[in-house]
């Protein structure tokens, strides 16, 4: 049986996942060793739930997103999207991945510099059979939704600022009306004033579409605005999880305590 009891309730279910990368240890014998990045991770997300994964660099945050997106096969455990194991077949993966909208970390690197914004926005629609008029309409809608002027679609990425590129990436992620938004440090490379604009935008979109959000960040304060539930990741393990307020007011793990303390306003 594929589904666990009640498994259908969950949009995404990550079960006992251990994943990592192979590295060549010695070049003379070309022996490869496995370095685990995620160790025995369990995570489940309901429809429309907003969860933040917090961790320092190297804690495995981005690897977790890769595993959910179907880009890195775990060595142990499985990933279910709407009850479907995405690593069971290519067909299952293609079906599942349409439900996900991914916003990558660095807006300056995430768009193909050789093509116009329009072409980049069209890409997610290629797997669905839309007519040319429908595609144009969807693109215009998406661009309007993220608050960009319509003529932007004729520009190349190099002529847009970081904040505008981030809006384009959000538009690209939501053009398929995904059920889950995967945000990888959506604001870390932006200025504070642009950061606030993007946070407000994501919240506005959430209130319109009620899609789920899986946010990966190292910034607790940003997570506070975009998520209700928080998972603290450290060295590839979940060390603490719960509702945002509970974790902040009552951190149980030493690391979380330190993290919360570093945001407090008192002078050093």
């Amino acid at each position, binding site marked *: 049986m594929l589904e666990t009891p009640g498994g259908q309730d969950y949009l995404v279910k990550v079960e006992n996942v251990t994943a990592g990368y192979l590295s060549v240890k010695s070049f003379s014998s070309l022996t490869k060793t496995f370095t685990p990045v995620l160790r025995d991770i369990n995570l489940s997300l309901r429809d429309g739930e907003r969860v933040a994964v917090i961790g*320092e*660099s190297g804690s495995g945050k981005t690897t977790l997103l890769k595993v959910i997106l179907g880009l890195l096969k775990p060595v142990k455990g499985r990933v279910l999207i709407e009850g479907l194991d995405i690593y069971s077949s290519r067909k299952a993966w293609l079906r599942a991945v349409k439900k996900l909208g991914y916003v990558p970390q660095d807006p300056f690197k995430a768009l193909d510099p050789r093509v116009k914004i329009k072409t980049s926005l069209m890409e997610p629609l290629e797997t669905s059979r839309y007519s040319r008029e429908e595609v144009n309409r969807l693109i215009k809608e998406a661009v309007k939704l993220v608050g960009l002027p319509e003529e932007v679609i004729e520009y190349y990425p190099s002529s847009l*600022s970081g*904040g505008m590129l981030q809006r384009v990436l959000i538009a690209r992620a939501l053009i398929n009306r995904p059920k889950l938004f995967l945000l990888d440090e959506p604001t870390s490379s932006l*200025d*504070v*004033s*642009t*950061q*606030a*604009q993007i*946070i*407000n935008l994501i919240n506005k979109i959430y209130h319109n579409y009620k899609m789920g959000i899986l946010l990966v960040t*190292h*910034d*607790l*304060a*940003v997570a*506070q*605005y975009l998520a209700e539930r928080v998972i603290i990741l450290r060295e590839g393990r979940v060390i603490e999880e719960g509702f945002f307020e509970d974790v*902040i007011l009552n951190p149980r793990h030493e*690391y979380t305590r*330190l*993290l*919360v*303390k*570093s*945001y*407090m*306003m*008192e*002078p*050093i």
Partner: protein
Amino acid sequence: MVLAVESKGLSIGYLDEEDRVLWVVKNVDMQVREGEIYCLVGESGCGKTTLGSSIAGVLPPYSVTRGELVIYGRRVIKDVLRSYEGVRGKLTSYIPQNPGSSLSPYMRIWDQFWRVLREQGLNEKTAKERATAILKTLSLGQGVLEHYPHELSGGMQQRVAIGLSLATGAKVLVADEPTSSVDANLKLQLMRLFKDVRDNYGVTIVLITHDILLAGKACDRIAVMYAGEIVEEGDSTSVLTRPLHPYTKLLVDVVPMLGFKKTLASIPGEPPKPGLLREGCYFYERCPFRDEVCLNHVETQVIDGRRVKCWKPLVDKTTS
């Protein structure tokens, strides 16, 4: 009160391909007192790094200057002329954004210290003692001296870079975005380290950052920059709690703060491109408190020892 750094009408620009000057820093009057941590805050493109590099003496050759910059009584910039002889690396020292890039990958940490310390006429034994003492205040052991930079973690590299700046005996340290590549929980430690360094060595630190909350925690005085100008300057607590300039107020309001979930203000639009010159206020388009007058009128006022570049600062609204 001894002034470590003082500028009068300092403007710095860069030449573009057609030999036109893009003014990045415009008409800045700045006074950094001896022994304080002075913070330049602003968003990218506001000219904070350019201003910082003019203090450290690392302006690129294609830059153009106007006005005056004085460091410990020595005039280093006088209009187009620049002379950092005896100042760069002696009076002032620069800690770049990426600590790893400032260390030579082929030299042990000790050799890098030795290269700096032997300039000061120390012999090898006293130099070693000096290096060990500096590393100790940065909570690094003597063992670090035998390592190559790539064998150290990012945080250790950064502390070594700070240590090397201290070893020069410079009185003014310029740190460019020291926390931008550091995790949240380590930022606080790093800021504490800067405070310790200031207390132990009596140096003046010019800190460049875009994080206004961090600036408020660690610094004595803050200068908020916008479009190449210092729009507000004052002691950090009053600038953060009772901002006078509309931009400072919005800058504080857009930063997400843990603990209380306020509505994030949104500053419409984006900062002007560097090089824009006009008579009135540069913040006009984005300012919620703007007036017709602002388009061609701006004046610098001094209120409670704070300088603000706005003809109608937010005095009444913030005190009432």
